[in-house]
C-alpha cells in the first residue's frame, strides 16, 4: 500500500471532521464554530457549559443530524459508485445506471400516492430493480457486464415511464417531483440511525472486496486464473452496492453526480488500488455532499435548493477540468 495513498486517506478523514464541525455551525442562527465544537464535544467529554440552551437544541436537534446524514449519504453513493465502476470496468457505471434510481423513484411515487411509508417503498423498489436487472442479464450462471448495463438501462426506462405516468395522474405531483430532485430536509436522528447502520455495514463489506476488485481489473479470465470466484464477487458487490445506495436514496431522494464523479476524481488522485480508492472515495463523497448541502440550504435561505442541483453545478466543472488536465483515458 502506497504511503501517498495512506496519507491522502488520513488527510481526507481530518478534513471530513473539520467540515462536519464547521458546517454544523453554519445556518440561519449564527453560532460560532468554536461553540459548535464545544457543544459537540460535550457529548463525549465534560466541557464547561458556556453556551445557550437554544443553541444546543439547534446544533444537536436540527443541524447535526442533517450534516451527518449528508455525510453518510455522500459516502454511501460514492463508495457504491466506486465499487460498480471497478466491478463493471466501465467509467459510466454508478448505482443509478443499472436501474436503482428509477426503482427508488417509482417506490417513492407509489409511497406518496398510496399513502405508504415513502422510505421503505423506495428502498424496496430500488433493491427489487437490481434483483430483476441481475436476473435478466444472467446467461448460464454468468452475468456479462454489457448485458448487465443494457438491461439496467432498459429496466430503468420502463420504471421511469411508470413513475412519469404516476406523476401525471397524481393529485399533488409536486411532492413526488421534489423527492426525485433529492434533498436532505427530512433529516432526523431516527432516520440517521437506521440509514447509518445499513450504510456502515454495506460499506465495510464492500471494503473487503477491495483486493478481488483490483485483481478483476486485469480482466475476468486473468482473475479466474488467480483463483477469484468472479460470479461470487459480482453478486456480492452488486448486492451491497445496492444496499448502501438504497439506504441512501430512501432518505435523500435521487442525488445525482456523487456516485459517478467522486470515484473518478479520487481515481485520478490516488490511482486504481481499491484498498486506497475505497476509503478515499467514501470520505470525499461525504465531504462533498456536506458542503453541497450547506450551500443548498443557505444560498436562498429561508428556502432551499434541491441538493442534486448543487452537486452537479459544482462537481461537473471541476470534473471537466480534471478530465482535460489528464491526457490518457480513464479506462482503455
Amino acid at each position, binding site marked *: 500500500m*502506497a504511503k501517498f495513498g495512506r496519507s491522502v486517506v488520513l488527510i481526507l478523514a481530518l478534513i471530513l471532521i473539520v467540515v462536519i464541525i464547521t458546517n454544523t455551525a453554519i445556518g440561519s442562527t449564527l453560532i460560532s464554530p468554536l461553540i459548535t465544537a464545544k457543544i459537540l464535544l460535550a457529548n463525549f467529554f465534560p466541557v464547561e457549559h458556556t453556551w445557550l440552551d437554544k443553541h444546543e437544541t439547534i446544533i444537536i436537534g436540527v443541524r447535526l443530524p442533517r450534516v451527518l446524514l449528508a455525510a453518510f449519504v455522500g459516502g454511501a453513493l460514492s463508495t457504491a459508485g466506486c465499487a460498480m465502476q471497478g466491478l463493471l470496468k466501465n467509467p459510466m457505471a454508478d448505482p443509478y445506471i443499472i436501474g436503482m434510481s428509477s426503482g427508488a423513484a417509482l417506490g417513492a411515487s407509489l409511497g406518496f400516492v398510496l399513502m405508504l411509508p415513502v422510505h421503505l417503498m423506495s428502498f424496496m423498489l430500488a433493491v427489487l430493480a437490481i434483483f430483476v436487472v441481475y436476473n435478466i442479464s444472467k446467461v448460464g450462471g454468468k452475468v456479462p457486464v454489457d448485458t448487465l448495463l443494457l438491461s439496467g438501462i432498459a429496466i430503468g426506462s420502463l420504471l421511469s415511464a411508470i413513475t412519469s405516468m404516476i406523476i401525471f395522474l397524481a393529485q399533488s405531483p409536486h411532492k413526488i417531483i421534489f423527492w426525485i430532485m433529492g434533498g436532505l430536509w427530512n433529516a432526523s436522528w431516527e432516520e440517521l440511525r437506521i440509514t447509518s447502520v445499513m450504510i456502515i455495514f454495506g460499506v465495510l463489506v464492500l471494503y*473487503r472486496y477491495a*483486493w*478481488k476488485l*483490483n*485483481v478483476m*481489473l*486485469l480482466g475476468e*479470465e*486473468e482473475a*479466474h*486464473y*488467480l*483463483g*477469484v*470466484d468472479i460470479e461470487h464477487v459480482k453478486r456480492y458487490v452488486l448486492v451491497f452496492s445496492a444496499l448502501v445506495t438504497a439506504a441512501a436514496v430512501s432518505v435523500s431522494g435521487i442525488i445525482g453526480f456523487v456516485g459517478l464523479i467522486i470515484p473518478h476524481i479520487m481515481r485520478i488522485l490516488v*490511482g*486504481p*488500488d481499491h484498498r486506497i480508492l475505497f476509503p478515499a472515495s467514501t470520505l470525499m463523497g461525504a465531504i462533498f455532499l456536506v458542503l453541497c448541502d450547506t450551500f443548498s440550504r443557505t444560498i436562498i435561505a429561508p428556502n432551499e435548493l434541491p441538493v442534486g442541483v448543487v452537486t452537479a453545478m459544482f462537481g461537473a466543472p471541476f470534473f471537466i477540468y480534471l478530465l482535460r488536465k489528464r491526457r490518457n483515458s480513464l*479506462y*482503455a
Partner: protein
Amino acid sequence: MLEIKGLSMNYGQRCVLNNIGLKAREGEVVGIIGPNGSGKTTMLKAITKVLKPTYGAVLIDGKDVREMESNEIAKNVAVVSQVISINFEFSVEDIVLMGRTPYIRSSESTEDIKIAMDALKKTNIYHLKDRLITQLSGGELQRVIIARALAQTPKILLLDEPTSHLDITNQIDVLNLVKEASRKGLVVVAVIHDLNLAAYYCDKICLLRDGDVIATGTPRDVLTSSNIGVAFNLPVEVTENSKTNSIFVMPVLEPRNEVSNQR
C-alpha cells in the same frame, strides 16, 4: 503430475478437441503445437476449468479439476497468457503480489510479500518493483506476468504463446526462465508457435490438428517433415543443428528473386 484423459470438447455441434490424452511430469517442459484453431488454447482452458470438458477429465496429482474450487485450482495451476498491456496504474510489486490471491484471506501477510519478492528476483525484475505496470516494455511486462505466476507457487505452469509478441532476445530470456522453473520441479505446459524454439526448449511435444493429437513424444520424433506437413499443410525441411544439438525446421520456399540478379 498433470494428466489429461480422453478429453473431448464440443462447442455446440463442433468438436474442438477429440479424445486427447497427455501426461506431463515434474521437471518436464511439454510443448503444445499446431496450427491456429487446432484446439491448443481450448486445451489450456479445460485444464483451468474455464471450460468444462464434454467428455474425459483433467487430473492434477490424480485429482479431477472439476471437483476443485477455483481457489484450489489457482494454488496448483498458474497461467501465463498473452497479456499485451495492463491499463491500470498498479505498481509491478502489486501485480506480482496478486499472484498470492488464492492464499490471501483479507490482507497479505509478510510471507506473501516475501514470496512475491522472491518471484521478482527469480525473474530478474526486482529493480522494477516500484515502477508502474503501464510504463513497462513488452518484454518486461511478460516477465512480470511470469513472476506473478511463480508467486502463485503452483505445481503446474501453463503458458499460452508466452513469446509471440516479443523480440528474439526476450523470447529466449522468457523461455530460459520457464526452463529454469521447470528444472526446479514445476510441470510446464506451453503453447508455442515457433517450432524451432519448441524443439530446443521442450522435453516433449504434443502436435495437434483439428482437435486430434497427431503425435506425442520427443521433439525429434514429433517434428518430422511428414508430421509437420500433415499438421500445417506446409512442406518443410528438417535438418540437424550441430551447434544447439537440436533440430531446425525450415519451410520449403521458392528460391528468392534477389534484386541484385535483376540488375
